[in-house]
């Protein structure tokens, strides 16, 4: 029986891309790395206590004193365990991945909501992104982008972006028909309809997607560490390879703390926008 040469085709494709566009990938990778490094350096420049204070203020304003207290406790614990540099590495990775996911994912989700054909094309691609084992694209990512943060961001975005796309699409499709009719009946342009009605009404759903994106990107930290992203993932890997269970646990705990803070902060954001509108 004839065997379809899928594997060979992929190999050939990767080779071809590397030969013809290798340089372009280098440039791209270099500029992203530059961006990430700049961001990381900027964060490191802020004293640790100032950053903790900033998080406390954000937490207090969005959710109240409980989250503020919890965040303070969690971050101080991370500092106490001498995990502060790893914390910054992971934070940068998560924020960059979330930003890229939002910047790419939300517009893609909007287009998918408007065009059912695009949505049909997009669906299997999203399934691919979410379920294809990440190691499969980690190796080519390494070949294209080299070792370091850039392939880590790439792998994280591939895995973490789908919820942002899916929930943006869902959120906009779920905007009640009569609210869209309000927009049209009062003579809104399509852009006004999107900005003033569809996106704001869909915002809680979109935020749920972004929240999921952040959570999923945190679950990628260990895999990201394998290709040189550093952060808590590196600590976990080191703990495993040295059979230092305690070290692995400390780093794992730090991931959980960061996840909880980011989750509660992003959930509080929605309630926050509402009260902000009221105060205007």
């Amino acid at each position, binding site marked *: 029986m004839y065997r379809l040469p899928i594997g060979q085709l992929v190999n050939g494709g990767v080779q071809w891309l590397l030969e013809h566009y290798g340089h372009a990938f280098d440039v791209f990778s270099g500029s992203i790395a530059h961006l990430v490094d700049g961001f990381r350096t900027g964060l490191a420049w802020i004293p640790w206590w100032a950053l903790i204070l900033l998080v406390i203020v954000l937490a207090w304003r969005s959710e109240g004193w409980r989250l503020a207290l919890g965040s303070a406790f969690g971050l101080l614990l991370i500092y106490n365990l001498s995990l502060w540099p790893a914390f910054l590495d992971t934070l940068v990775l998560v924020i960059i991945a979330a930003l890229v996911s939002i910047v790419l994912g939300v517009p893609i989700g909007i287009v998918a909501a408007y065009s059912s054909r695009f949505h049909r094309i997009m669906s299997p691609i999203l399934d691919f992104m979410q379920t294809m084992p990440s190691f499969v694209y980690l190796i080519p990512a390494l070949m294209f982008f080299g070792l370091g943060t850039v392939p880590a961001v790439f792998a994280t975005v591939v895995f973490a972006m789908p919820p942002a796309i899916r929930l943006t699409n869902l959120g906009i499709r779920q905007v009640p028909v009569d609210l869209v009719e309000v927009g049209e009946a009062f003579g*809104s342009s399509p852009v006004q309809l999107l900005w003033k009605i569809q996106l704001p009404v869909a915002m809680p759903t979109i935020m749920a997607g972004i929240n999921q994106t952040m959570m999923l990107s945190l679950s990628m930290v260990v895999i990201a560490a394998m290709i040189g992203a550093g952060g808590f993932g590196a600590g976990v890997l080191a703990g495993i390879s040295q059979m230092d269970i305690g070290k692995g646990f400390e780093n794992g705990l730090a991931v959980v703390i960061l996840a909880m803070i980011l989750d509660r902060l992003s959930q509080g954001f929605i309630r926050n926008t509402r009260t902000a509108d009221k105060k205007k």
Partner: protein
Amino acid sequence: MSAKIEVKNLVKVFGSQPRKALSMIEKGMSKEQILAETGQTVGVNDVSFTVETGEIFVVMGLSGCGKSTILRCLNRLIEPSSGSVLIDGQDITKLKARELRMVRQNKTAMVFQQFALLPHRTVLHNTVYGLEVQGVPKEQREKRARESLAMVGLNGWENSYPDELSGGMKQRVGLARALTNDPDILLMDEAFSALDPLIREEMQDELLKLQQAMNKTIVFITHDLSEALKIGDRIAFVRDGSLVQVSSPEDIINHPADAYVANFVRGVERSKVLLAKDVMGDTGSITLSDELGKAIQVMEEGGAAGVFVIDRDSRLQGVLTSETVFKAIKAGAVSIRELELIQVSAVSVETKIQEVINIIARSKLPLAVVDNENRLAGSIVHSAVLAALAGKGGEEDVPTTNWTTG
């Protein structure tokens, strides 16, 4: 009055092959035939009507009859399959997207059944929406929004969110949002149907009151006949996407076009709909300068024991009974001016029969009916009211005034 909206041969076919269905409609085939053969649903079937400037035009029908589709064809929220919709003589079915937006911004505004307030905006920011998309400066649009909120009685609620309001208040916001645009035409899609009966009546009264001040052209959709009869200047009955009857509330009651409308109208409380002018009969009258002989002559002609006395401008002065006349003649009087008239109250031609009953029940005399300039227009006797309420209304068989005194 002039035509504000003219709808001509409007057709809306739901489905993927409207052309096929359209040609079948032209051949005069029925909705059912078209559905069976093509699978296309005819939502609106060759509807034509005209809405005059300043009138409340009610489109009435059961749910699913196509009345909301008709309304949405007026501002093209639903694209008509064929036919034309003229607003101020401009065919909006032919407008390009940008021109259509201009019409929607400047001429029409819509009020929705489920209020359709934007949940992320405060009452004030909901109300400014129409002006906001037009690019009116913030200060100016908020000033106008506050004015229209005050008009619907919502001062002080500007900074509340829709989910903090009751249903009636939400619809007031919906109304204020529409009024802020200062449109010529208000399109109201079952605007009060989702409200409690008491609140609904309150809003109907409010709308009528506002309408007196604003004089907008209103197209109002409802499935509630009593609502239609109460607020409509004219009512269009829709069944299965076709117009069955377009006429005044009184005509709907008195002369239903077919069995369908008649069946609808049967349960109506006629006293709330019929007006004094629908039940009044012709009445004889004499003027102050007439001689007494004329009074006797008029009474004899009408077979009555009394007569209304009017002045030179036809304004009602009082009632003269035969008793008074005969006494006066015996006493040697000649002119009516010398006599004492019985003072009676009068009602306007536009008075609801409901109120007429209250007045007439307390009096044995026929009730005088005057027109808008206070001139005597006719009179109502007890039996005419009863006949009208029993459903035998109609000008032909209203009993003429028959005096009984004493």
